[in-house]
């Protein structure tokens, strides 16, 4: 009986959000005019709920679907269950938050704004669809399902990014889409290459195959970069700061909280992390990865600190945090024997960052429209996740301690130092983000005194709670808490960060302003875009010149043909001549024939 239970649960968990997504067009189709229709209704909010059942401790959490795509296998293990928990929680709470967040659009729909209605419909459709993809990619054990889930999530998220339809949203969407497509391309290439070499359609065999394949490290590099687009590897991160500020806040929360973790999961699922003997090349790749990760951690911190939009700051913080994660994952290649312990730390870090960052993003919306609660309480609550992310308390502290111990065991103290320094940057970013929120809130309270009630604060508080309580419920296992003596070693970066932030804030306020103007969110995107436009213009000209030259050849041929056809007039004259000289020609041909026959051998 139980061997049927898990399959049905997992299928329902996958189909439920998908079904809810499909419900939107069906509802729209059944009655075309429904201004009072609530798209984000209660049912809609239940999208991730069936997946909660997957978090139960199943004895044999695996399902094989032989008819599915290239043959499907869905299963769960502890790390993935943890990420699943993160996903379900954050999506669920963000969905709840979205109901409140988009209430104004609902009002506009009811007031007869068709565009608002369509935006809502689109959101209602793509949100659960994106979730379905996200869930699928977590449970997928076969490549096709994984890729299906990954790309469904990626492309459905585009709709969330461009939701507002403003110019900035279009730019953000474009950046998101371009990078996503590039990433998909690299992932596809890596997957095909690796799967072709290993002759498999399963991810675990693919990991094995990578090590054995002659050019495995290149495949791994492709996969790292491909998933790296999502995970914000330095250089490929440009979409994050562009897409996050423009997306609706709940969408930003899931984008930054959950979806970029899909990139991480991609690494975990495809790279031969913790393989007994990955070979020199993979160690080299690991070094490159960790350097790239640290570069992202620092670069993003510095650049992000110069942003003025709180969501952009948070986005850079995500880049920075993911850089730290990248460096940790890279350890799986450099010191594979430490991987099992490190994996737990990585997952904890990922979940902590996901929930905390989700809280922070949702908090941005909260600070814009403060609910009815004392201001000191509100700001204290807004400060909490920031502190957690800086590693001062809560899950942040636990996860920091988690990887620190592993790295000490692995004798990589230098990395610990670097990560601690990165935490200084994180603190800086948090300070900056809160400062920006504070200023925005002050401005907003002047012109928009409407206070929020209901879903939004509840959802926000929910995420805050979930983030805070993370170490106690994570399916990966309870993390250890640092002994009190270690706290100084864990807190000094945060303290340094606060000092730095305050001193910079006080000393260089004027300069900062000018610097900020010169550093738009999206950093590399703009020069890349300019370069691309130059190249694309040239390519487009080249292509059109190609078409034109082909057409020119055709035209020349046609002219030749016309000339020939005109030349056929000669034939007509010849025909007349032949007509006049029939008898002569007959005589001549008789003569010629006779001569030929007589002369020929």
């Amino acid at each position, binding site marked *: 009986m139980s061997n049927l239970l898990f399959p049905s649960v997992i299928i329902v968990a996958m189909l439920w959000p998908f079904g809810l997504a499909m419900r939107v067009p069906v509802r729209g189709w059944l009655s075309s005019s429904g201004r009072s229709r609530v798209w984000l209704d209660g049912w809609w909010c239940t999208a991730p709920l069936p997946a909660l059942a997957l978090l139960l401790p199943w004895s044999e959490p695996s399902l094989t679907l032989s*008819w*599915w795509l290239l043959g499907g296998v869905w299963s769960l293990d502890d790390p993935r269950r943890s990420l699943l928990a993160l996903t379900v929680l954050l999506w669920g709470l963000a969905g709840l938050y979205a109901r409140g967040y988009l209430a104004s659009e609902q009002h506009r729909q009811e007031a007869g704004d068709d565009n608002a209605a369509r935006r809502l419909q689109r959101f209602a459709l793509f949100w659960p669809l994106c979730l379905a993809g996200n869930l699928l990619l977590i449970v997928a054990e076969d490549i096709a399902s994984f890729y299906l889930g990954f790309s469904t999530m990626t492309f459905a998220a585009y709709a969330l990014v461009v939701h507002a339809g403003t110019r900035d949203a279009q730019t953000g969407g474009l950046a998101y889409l371009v990078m996503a497509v590039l990433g998909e391309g690299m992932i*596809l290439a890596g997957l095909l290459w690796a799967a072709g070499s290993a002759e498999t359609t399963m991810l675990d065999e693919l990991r094995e195959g990578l090590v054995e394949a002659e050019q495995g490290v290149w495949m791994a590099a492709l996969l790292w970069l491909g998933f790296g687009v999502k995970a914000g590897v330095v250089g490929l991160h440009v979409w994050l700061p562009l897409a996050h500020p423009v997306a609706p806040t709940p969408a930003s929360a899931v984008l930054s909280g959950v979806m970029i973790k899909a990139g991480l999961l991609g690494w975990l699922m495809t790279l031969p992390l913790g393989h007994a003997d990955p070979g020199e090349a993979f160690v080299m790749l690991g070094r490159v990865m960790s350097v790239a990760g640290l570069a992202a951690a620092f670069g993003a911190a510095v650049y992000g600190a110069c942003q003025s939009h709180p969501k952009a700051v948070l986005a850079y913080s995500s880049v920075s945090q993911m850089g730290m994660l990248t460096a940790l994952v890279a350890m799986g290649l450099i010191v594979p024997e430490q991987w099992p312990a490190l994996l737990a730390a990585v997952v904890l870090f990922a979940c902590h960052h996901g929930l905390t960052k989700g809280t922070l993003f949702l908090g941005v919306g909260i600070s814009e429209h403060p609910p009815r609660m004392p201001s000191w309480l509100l700001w204290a609550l807004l400060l909490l996740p920031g502190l957690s992310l800086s590693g001062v308390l809560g899950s942040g502290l636990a996860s920091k301690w988690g990887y620190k111990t592993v790295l000490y065991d692995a004798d990589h103290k230098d990395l610990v130092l670097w990560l601690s320094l990165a935490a200084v940057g994180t603190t800086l970013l948090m300070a900056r983000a809160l400062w920006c929120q504070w200023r925005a809130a002050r401005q907003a309270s002047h012109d928009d005194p409407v206070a929020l009630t209901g879903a939004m604060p509840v959802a926000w508080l929910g995420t805050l709670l979930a983030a805070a309580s993370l170490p106690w419920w994570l399916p990966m296992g309870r993390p250890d808490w640092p002994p009190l003596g270690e706290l100084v070693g864990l807190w000094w970066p945060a303290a340094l960060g606060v000092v730095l932030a305050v001193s910079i804030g006080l000393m260089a306020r004027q300069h900062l302003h000018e610097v900020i103007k010169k550093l738009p969110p999206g950093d590399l995107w703009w020069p890349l875009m300019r370069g691309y436009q130059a190249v694309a213009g040239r390519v487009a000209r080249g292509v059109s010149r190609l*078409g034109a030259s082909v057409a020119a050849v055709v035209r020349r041929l046609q002219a030749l043909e016309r000339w020939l056809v005109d030349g056929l007039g000669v034939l007509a004259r010849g025909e007349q001549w032949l007509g006049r000289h029939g008898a002569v020609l007959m005589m001549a041909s008789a003569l010629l024939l006779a001569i030929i026959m007589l002369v020929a051998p």
Partner: protein
Amino acid sequence: MSGAVFPIATLASSLLVAALIFLLPERAWWARTSLNLGASLIKLGLVGWMVWGLHRGLDYAVEFPVVAGVSFVLRADALGIMFAGLSSLLWLFTTLYAIGYLEDSPNRKRFFGFFSLCVASTLGISLAGNLFTFLIFYEMLTLSTYPLVVHRGTPKALAAGAVYLRYTLSGGLALLLGVVALHVIAGDIHFGEREVLADLGAEWHPLLVSIFVLMILGLGVKTALVPLHGWLPKAMVAPAPVSALLHAVAVVKAGAFGIVRLVYDVYGIELSYQLGLMHGLVAIAAVTIIYGSLRALAQQELKARLAFSTVSQVSYIVLGVGLFGPLATVAALSHLLHQGLMKVTLFFCAGNYAEELGIHRIDELDGAGWRMPLTSFAFTVGALGMIGLPPTVGFISKWYLGVGSIEAGMPWLLAVLVTSSLLNAAYFLPILHRLWFRVGPAHGYGDWPDERRLGRMETSGWLLWPTLATAAFSLLAGLLASMPFSPLEWAARVASQEYVL
């Protein structure tokens, strides 16, 4: 006895219909429509029966001599029946679509007559048992499609028809020469008798290579391999169902199918590989894939973009054929079907936009998704398939092609495939963006170029349902790719036959 009846009946079902339609008066709408639909259903049934029969190990063949040493052979083998299945399935949908599309337009009798002839030729191509028979139907296809291409009778259509003929007739001649030359060397080779050429001594090899090149030239015209593709973008002036048929199943597929037959069933993979022919095919296909995509990127008309996309996509088949290995073969054969499903969907959609809203250019599509959601959904499915995203069939093809190119030891082809995917994305995603995310006339800004209310739904049901059906097929054939009798599974069956022997 019954073995001979089925191929003939399948062929006759459309030939007879063609004749009857020509005899019916122009205004006999009901008779013509029921004839068309009845025959296509019957044919689908017959093909289905043959599929089942082949599964049980039966043999369907008929043969009679035309002149001494040359026979007319119809034989339903696994590969042929695959193509026959595609063409009869898509014929049904395209017929339905065409009925709606040509509502109230002149010359419907001529159209449907030649339409049936065209399908008869395609079926003949699929069931042909030797090169001679193949050639017969191949040329018949050229002739029966010409009236369809010039159907509109505009100067543009007539010019396109002239170009079409120039290309295809010259190609047919090259093919004829090749077939005759093979015949002179080796006699009447039935498809599958790979040992005949393989047993020829090495002194014949240069000749065999040149014959192969000649025949590829001939087949390449219909397959629209660069630089023989010039007719295809021009031929898209034809009515949408014709374009759909031309691009999805009839003409380009006939060429691709011919290449498949030539490599697998006449020369045999081993010999082709020995002669180094496969590398040439791969090179041409790779160039065509990239070139077609680049040109598509520059097109501003929807159908033109789709046409260049076909140039690119059909070469996937050729690429698969050119790679040595069973996986690549599976890719080639399954893409034969997959591309048909996807492209027919896309052209149906283009036709729907043109008929319902008068949209021809891509920049007129803003917001059309909200005006015609189902059509646009179908278009989205097709476009995603072209990019190669799961769960559409395009992904399945791309997967097998990629894995096949690794198997054949040519990982650099992945770059071609991925570049093609990226380019596909670059020219399809903007369309999707326009459809769903831009504000346009559906939002009250501006007008559609030429809006007609064709039906109670977003457009006439005749136009809508076939579109949705093919879109559904392109989704399902991908989602359920590992089911028995799915295109992929059947392709794998054919491939295993090719490699076991």
